[in-house]
């Protein structure tokens, strides 16, 4: 086994290579903008140069004179589109700011015109020749900008239901023996998936095909149909491969319906390839956040009081928020807890999900503060977590379905060599390099959503699985193929999986790390329907319940234990049935899913359940991360030579793809601490570094050593697949671990991200 394919432990599947490996290394994987179109016209966007104000006039003469220009669409001649509500208000959109509707400008980089031409080059040239006169007013850019408004999240964001509280925080904090009060901040960040935000639209009569990288084909299909005012069954979204998502493709952006409507008007396929910098403003981003944490503890380290106040920036139009206090108030045992989340409105595009949306900023604050508390208590930070570990979350007292937090700390500490750390800051060095060790906890809610699947089995064992899931790099094809092969007892190479197409049975959004849990649970259920048909054909009716359970035809063989240990002679069963193909369709929903789940699933509303919102329990995956930083004592250059993470996330379907996700997550976490920030020119509310050279992303040379440890964990209380999502687990807490390590190296506590060499004091 190579490092990439770790030996499976208990309750792990085989580390088989990716289902889509060969097409991806040969260039044959077709992403949205690779799809062939018949005689397409090319679209190029013109975006606003001001953040607030109005368009007075377009001068399009020069642009129209460019050879090959077909049409220039502005608010003056744009096709009529219906509004779509924000996803959190029951709609599909990631923003309610609908471009090309009026002369008003809501944010910098808003789409204000679409140029259509015979070639990409001509469309680009004409777009550059569009002249716009504006009346600009002073925009409010971010926190502290004049003109912003702030208000509690509760009451303005339908998905933010409570500011978690328990006990009497004020009194307990007042009386606490040891106290910490600290303020933290995290910056704007952009997903920057490698695939641009392209859209191709082609009409065949009344039917529309959309090729677009999406993390939710059912949401996009229904959302575009709503905006166009047509039957959703006439819209098909196709994207068998998606070039990274990280949340940016989870909800509908305004570009899609605009391009679809223009294609209909021109009666011609249209291909839009926006530029990288346009991607910063035509999609969403991780908003900047601020936090104040108050921790009160007894001398022995036991928390007695915890308060987390968070503030997040959103647009004028939409009350987007991530509200990570739902997690930070429940992570440790503490009898007196208080929290408050507020939203600050600015003249910006609406932010949205970005990999671990609540946990990345909110755990940065909490896990930094825990380290500060450990320092004040003169206690090992790992021991502080152990003392405050809990089996039940403190707000409602509900038990965690499983919680391997301290086991992760112990495994990772051992692998890292934490015992070699000398606790005093500035006490470790190597030549010119100050060395710091730091650690932090990570956690991510276990979420599930209703999903359907269709499975077809042939007599020779060939199997076809159809599900409108999404391959955004997570290994979705692979784990679905493995699940079907295991469940039906057929060889893996005989399983074909079809995804990324809204004409297939609905799967939920590839977000909230729910995909493997949801889609594999659905595929298991449908495979069981096939098993039951086959077994009934060859087994006498008089079998006892016990015998039925043994052979897998019990009415509810719902746990991961039921698989190939119940051999089935497929050929014999087919002969007994007298058919050539057995095909089953089924719809699965998790316990506690609302009554309208299946209807919602078909209409593009995912109805995620899990995390702290379960009725009698709370489900999270956990991990612990350890980092070594090295800071040059003269230049203050910061390097991060080692990242070690240990994680427990229920059943690991494929240790290879899981490890890769966790490894990428650790690097994301490092990046969120040391590299990534979208800089804003506050005078103009404009993103300055909107390209891949100036928006710092990690490159290979930034990442010397990453070690991923996966712990064996079994949890039968979450979903039939026994899976906790892990795609968003590893990039949480890393930012705090790095700042904690910087404190250990230098004695300097840094509370605002990212940390750059100019932030290190002499």
């Amino acid at each position, binding site marked *: 086994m190579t490092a990439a394919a770790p030996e499976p432990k208990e309750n792990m599947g085989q580390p088989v290579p990716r289902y889509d490996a*060969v097409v*991806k290394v040969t260039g044959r994987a077709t992403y949205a*903008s690779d799809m062939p179109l018949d005689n397409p016209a090319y679209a190029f966007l013109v975006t606003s140069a001001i953040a607030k104000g109005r368009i007075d006039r377009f001068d399009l003469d020069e642009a129209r004179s460019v050879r090959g220009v077909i049409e220039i669409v502005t608010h003056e001649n744009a096709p009529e589109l219906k509004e779509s509500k924000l996803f959190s208000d029951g709609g599909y959109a990631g923003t309610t700011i609908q471009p090309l509707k009026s002369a008003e400008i809501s944010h910098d980089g808003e789409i204000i015109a679409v140029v259509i031409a015979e070639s990409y080059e001509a469309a680009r040239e004409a777009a550059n020749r569009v002249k716009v006169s504006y009346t600009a007013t002073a925009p409010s850019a971010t926190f502290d900008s004049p003109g912003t408004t702030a208000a509690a999240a509760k009451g303005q964001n339908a998905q933010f239901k409570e500011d978690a509280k328990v006990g009497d925080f004020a009194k307990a904090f007042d009386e606490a023996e040891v106290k910490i009060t600290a303020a933290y901040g995290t910056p704007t960040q952009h997903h920057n998936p*490698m695939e641009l935000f392209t859209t191709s639209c082609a009409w065949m009569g009344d039917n529309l095909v959309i090729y677009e990288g999406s993390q939710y084909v059912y949401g996009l299909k229904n959302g575009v149909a709503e905006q166009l005012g047509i039957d959703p069954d006439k819209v098909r979204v196709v994207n068998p491969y998606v070039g990274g998502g990280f949340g940016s493709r989870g909800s509908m952006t305004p570009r899609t319906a605009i391009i679809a409507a223009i294609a209909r008007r021109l009666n011609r396929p249209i291909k839009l390839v926006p530029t990288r910098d346009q991607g910063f403003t035509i999609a969403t981003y991780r908003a900047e956040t601020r936090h104040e944490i108050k921790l009160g503890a007894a001398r022995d380290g036991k928390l007695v009081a915890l308060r987390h106040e968070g503030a997040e920036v959103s647009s004028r139009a939409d009350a987007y928020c991530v509200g990570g206090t739902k997690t930070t108030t429940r992570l440790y045992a503490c009898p007196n807890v208080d929290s408050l989340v507020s939203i600050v409105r600015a003249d910006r595009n609406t932010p949205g999900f970005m990999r671990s949306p609540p946990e990345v900023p909110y755990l940065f604050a909490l896990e930094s503060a825990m380290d500060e508390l450990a320092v004040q208590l003169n206690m090992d930070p790992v021991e502080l977590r152990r003392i405050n570990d809990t089996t039940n979350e403190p707000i409602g007292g509900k038990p965690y379905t499983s919680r391997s937090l301290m086991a992760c700390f112990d495994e990772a500490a051992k692998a890292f060599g934490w015992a070699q750390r000398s606790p005093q800051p500035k006490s470790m060095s190597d030549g010119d390099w100050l060395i710091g060790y730091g650690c932090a906890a990570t956690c991510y809610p276990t979420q599930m959503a209703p999903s359907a699947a269709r499975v077809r089995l042939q007599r020779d064992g060939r199997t076809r699985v159809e599900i409108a899931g999404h391959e955004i790099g997570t290994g979705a094809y692979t784990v679905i193929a493995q699940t079907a092969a295991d469940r039906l007892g057929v060889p893996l190479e005989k399983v074909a999986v079809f995804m990324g197409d809204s004409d297939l049975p609905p799967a939920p959004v590839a977000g909230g790390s729910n995909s493997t849990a949801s889609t594999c649970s659905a595929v298991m259920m449908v495979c069981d329907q096939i098993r039951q048909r086959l077994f009934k054909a060859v087994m006498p009716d008089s079998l006892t319940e016990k015998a039925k359970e043994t052979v897998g035809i019990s009415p509810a063989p719902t746990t991961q234990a039921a698989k190939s240990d119940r051999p089935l002679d497929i050929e014999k069963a087919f002969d007994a049935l007298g058919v050539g193909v057995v095909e089953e369709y089924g719809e699965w929903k998790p316990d506690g899913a609302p009554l309208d789940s299946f209807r919602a699933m078909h209409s593009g509303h995912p109805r995620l359940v899990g995390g702290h919102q379960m009725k009698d329990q709370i489900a999270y995956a956990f991990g612990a991360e350890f980092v070594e930083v090295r800071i040059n004592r003269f230049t203050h250059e910061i390097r991060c030579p080692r990242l070690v993470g240990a994680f427990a996330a229920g059943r690991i379907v494929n240790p290879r793809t899981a490890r890769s996700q966790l490894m990428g997550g650790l690097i994301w976490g490092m990046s969120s601490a040391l590299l990534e920030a979208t800089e804003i020119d506050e005078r103009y509310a404009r993103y300055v570094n909107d*390209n891949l050279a100036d928006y710092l992303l990690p490159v290979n040379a930034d*990442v010397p050593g990453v070690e991923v440890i996966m712990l064996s964990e079994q949890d039968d209380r979450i979903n039939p697949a026994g899976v906790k999502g892990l795609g968003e687990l590893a990039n949480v807490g890393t930012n705090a671990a790095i700042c904690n390590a910087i404190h250990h190296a230098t004695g300097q506590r840094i509370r605002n991200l990212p940390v750059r060499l100019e932030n290190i004091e002499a």
Partner: protein
Amino acid sequence: MSDSSSSKQSAFDRRAFMAGAAGSALVPITARAAAAEARPPVAQDPALPVDVTLHVNGKEKRLRIDARTTVLDALRDHLKLTGSKKGCDHGQCGACTVLIGERRVVSCLTLALAAEGQEITTIEGLATDEHLHPMQQAFIDNDAFQCGYCTPGQIMSAIACVKEGHAGSEADIREYMSGNICRCAAYPNIVAAVKQAAPEIMKG
């Protein structure tokens, strides 16, 4: 293959293009003077199609395209070779990397006209019907990708990295593979893949 023969096939004159398109203040004054001496600037509409012959993966491809078409867009939009990817169109991400001759180049910053007469190798040109290229196999073995969008560029870059002699150590591989961004951050696995494939590639 030579410059003169390829420009004979083309209706487009590269020197005239240089003078016409860049004949403003952006070009150093000496260069501009030299171009002007050679031939007076001819204003030519760049949108007028030009004939270009590209040699891609061992095949000759004749195209009639906008003179501003990059190698990347020529491959993707005109030759239906969509393996090379557009990630930034600015030469910042490396997803469009192809080999021109032995050199790895970002095809989004290379005009198709400038590649005329040279051998272009793309990701589609590596595998034979039966066999993957050793670097492709190494990427699979080491799970050196997730979403796969940067992968064609990574693999082309990795092959050149080895042939340049920059795969001698892990530190070297990391340094010389840093022109290719992988947002999924498969970096450690990419290093392992390059390390695995290097001896086989050097053997030839």
